[in-house]
């Protein structure tokens, strides 16, 4: 039985249009379905304004859905007050009560639950030591560091031992170093407690590393929901493909052409023979004969042809002029310009090992592994599997 189930969820906010002064309906969440299993660590990722925090607020009960249903533990809980749901929440701003000590903050939920004093004290001290906050117990939130505040917020949410823990970008206010430490800590925490965690973030690395499954959201809908491997290697559409991965996947629009039984991908910049592809995929692409498609390839899956020892088919190669080179320590990113104007992104990125020698303004030959090339329908932007 799924622990949290969202069914046709819609949330519409009324907004007053600044130009016309009329009330406008803005669908933040548009018909969203999601099943979250007991004990799963789910991450919701998307750009700001995509509705990911709203999903969290709906699950928490801070907002009510316009339509659709929310089941928690099999129980319909659309208009249940937050205090009647067994949840804990960590806010982006931590929302620590500034007038209470760290100890009192963590004990707030227990105090309301009327947990006996002795038990409460034990629990607080256990949480404090678990989060390495023993020395901060009687300090005010304003006196401790950002990382410590973050831990207090987590401790406070955990103190009442909720079944579901909601986290709204809990690491976005920390610096890079602390963030990676805390990521590991969250992973440990989930391993120990085994409670359901729903975690909202805009950082794809966080989403991929933390979640058992991740959902990619865009404009109020879930574009893809699956494990990080599924999403990275089999993106369902252009949005997902472009969202996950750094640098961004390269997109080149072109046509599928069948010349005497040989299938080509042809665009203004390059012509690529596809006979190397697995049979099934080739057959599917054949259906798109003379139709527009978008090819996507990750910068990591392209290499300089001369440096590959394995012999490859000739058709997988293409020539391009290097525009600029961005060194990144062990790796470097080569940027070329695509000259056709109708591309999604004019820059074409290739990521190479730093020891590969190449110069700016040089014309080089690239090759790519067709197993990692993705094709998308030009019309509905969905992946052609």
């Amino acid at each position, binding site marked *: 039985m799924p622990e949290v189930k969202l069914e046709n969820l819609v949330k519409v906010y009324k907004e007053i249009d600044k130009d016309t002064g009329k009330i406008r309906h803005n669908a933040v969440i548009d018909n969203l379905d999601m099943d979250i299993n007991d004990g799963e660590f789910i991450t919701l990722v998307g750009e700001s304004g995509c509705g990911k925090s709203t999903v969290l607020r709906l699950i928490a009960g801070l907002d009510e859905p316009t339509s659709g249903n929310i089941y928690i533990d099999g129980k319909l809980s659309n208009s249940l007050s937050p205090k009647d749901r067994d949840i804990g929440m960590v*806010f982006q*701003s931590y*929302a620590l*009560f500034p007038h209470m000590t760290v100890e009192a903050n963590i004990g707030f939920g227990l105090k*309301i639950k009327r947990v006996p004093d002795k038990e409460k004290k034990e629990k607080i001290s256990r949480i404090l030591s678990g989060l390495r906050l023993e020395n901060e117990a009687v300090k005010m939130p304003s006196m401790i560091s950002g990382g410590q505040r973050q831990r207090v917020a987590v401790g406070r949410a955990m103190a009442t031992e909720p079944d579901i823990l909601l986290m709204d970008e809990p690491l976005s206010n920390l610096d890079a170093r602390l963030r990676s430490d805390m990521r590991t800590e969250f992973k440990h925490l989930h391993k120990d407690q085994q409670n359901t965690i729903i975690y909202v973030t805009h950082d794809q690395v966080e989403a991929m590393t933390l979640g058992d499954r991740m959902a990619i959201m865009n404009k109020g809908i879930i574009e893809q929901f699956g494990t990080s491997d599924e999403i990275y290697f089999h993106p369902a559409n252009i949005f997902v493909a472009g969202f996950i991965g750094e640098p961004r996947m390269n997109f080149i629009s072109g046509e599928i052409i069948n010349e005497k039984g040989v299938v080509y991908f042809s665009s203004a910049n390059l012509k690529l023979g596809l006979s190397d592809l697995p049979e099934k995929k080739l057959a599917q692409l054949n259906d798109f004969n003379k139709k527009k498609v978008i090819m996507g390839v990750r910068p990591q899956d392209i290499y300089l042809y001369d440096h590959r020892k394995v012999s490859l088919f000739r058709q997988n190669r293409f020539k391009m002029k290097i525009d600029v080179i961005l060194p990144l320590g062990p790796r470097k990113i080569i940027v070329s310009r695509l000259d056709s104007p109708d591309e999604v992104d004019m820059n074409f990125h290739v990521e190479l090992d730093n020891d590969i020698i190449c110069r700016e303004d040089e014309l080089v030959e690239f090759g790519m592994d067709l197993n990692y090339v993705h094709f998308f329908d030009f019309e509905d932007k969905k992946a052609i599997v």
Partner: protein
Amino acid sequence: MKNLFTKNVRSINGTNFLWLVSLVSVLLIIIIPLIVLFKFSISDNSSLFPPVPLWPHNPDFSQYKELLGSKDFIMAAFYSLEIALLTVLLSLITGAPVAYVLSRLKIPGISIIIFFILAIRFFPGICSVIPVVEFFSNPIFNLLPVLIKVVLAHTLLSLPYVIFMCQGVFDAIPVELEEQALILKARRFYTFIHVVIPIARTGIAAAAIYVFLLSWNEFIFSYFLMFQSTTVTLPVYLFKKIVWTPQLNYLAAISVCLSVPVILFTFIIQKQIIMGATEGSSK
């Protein structure tokens, strides 16, 4: 350092000179009346007649001594204090919750409520005082003690300020705190008392001081409501003194006693005074 130096050299020019002159003259215009007031309050009787000396012949504090011995003055001071404190209490109890709702609940039509709250401030005091006085002199409300009438009137005057100041205070408290409390299963009322109020404490205190000053200084409503009453507030007491015995040093001493708490409090809540003064300027 070098920068500072060149700046100083360049600074001796026309505009800067003009600026300095106007700074000094404005300061003089502001300060001289206060010094004159203080001078009169410590003057002996011989220094009151023309030509009035710039500094009294025999400065003493006898006027203050006499004031503190005067039963009327003490009564008026306590009356003022009582009215101001009751006004603070009443306007906070009624105004702060309104401010809280206005700050938290974004419901359509709330701007109409705000409009009405603002509207009352645009009635000239001298115009709105008459209906209020007539209202309080009808047979039912006439039975109320004058004190209560004045408190009610002052509350009416101060409510808009309380609401706007407290709304600013509540706006500054993140909603997340309350949502967090709600998730931790606290009731709304519990949250209001144990989370919102303690955080808003200093801001509300400032609003309280503002209201206190407003009531302490208020003249028109007190004057009309206490026209025939024997116990009066300090400003009305002072006014009656002008009419009867203009013994200047005594008058000055009362004035000083009336002003000193106001000046002190004003410095304490400067920030909120600025807020109150500029409030409505963007509307």
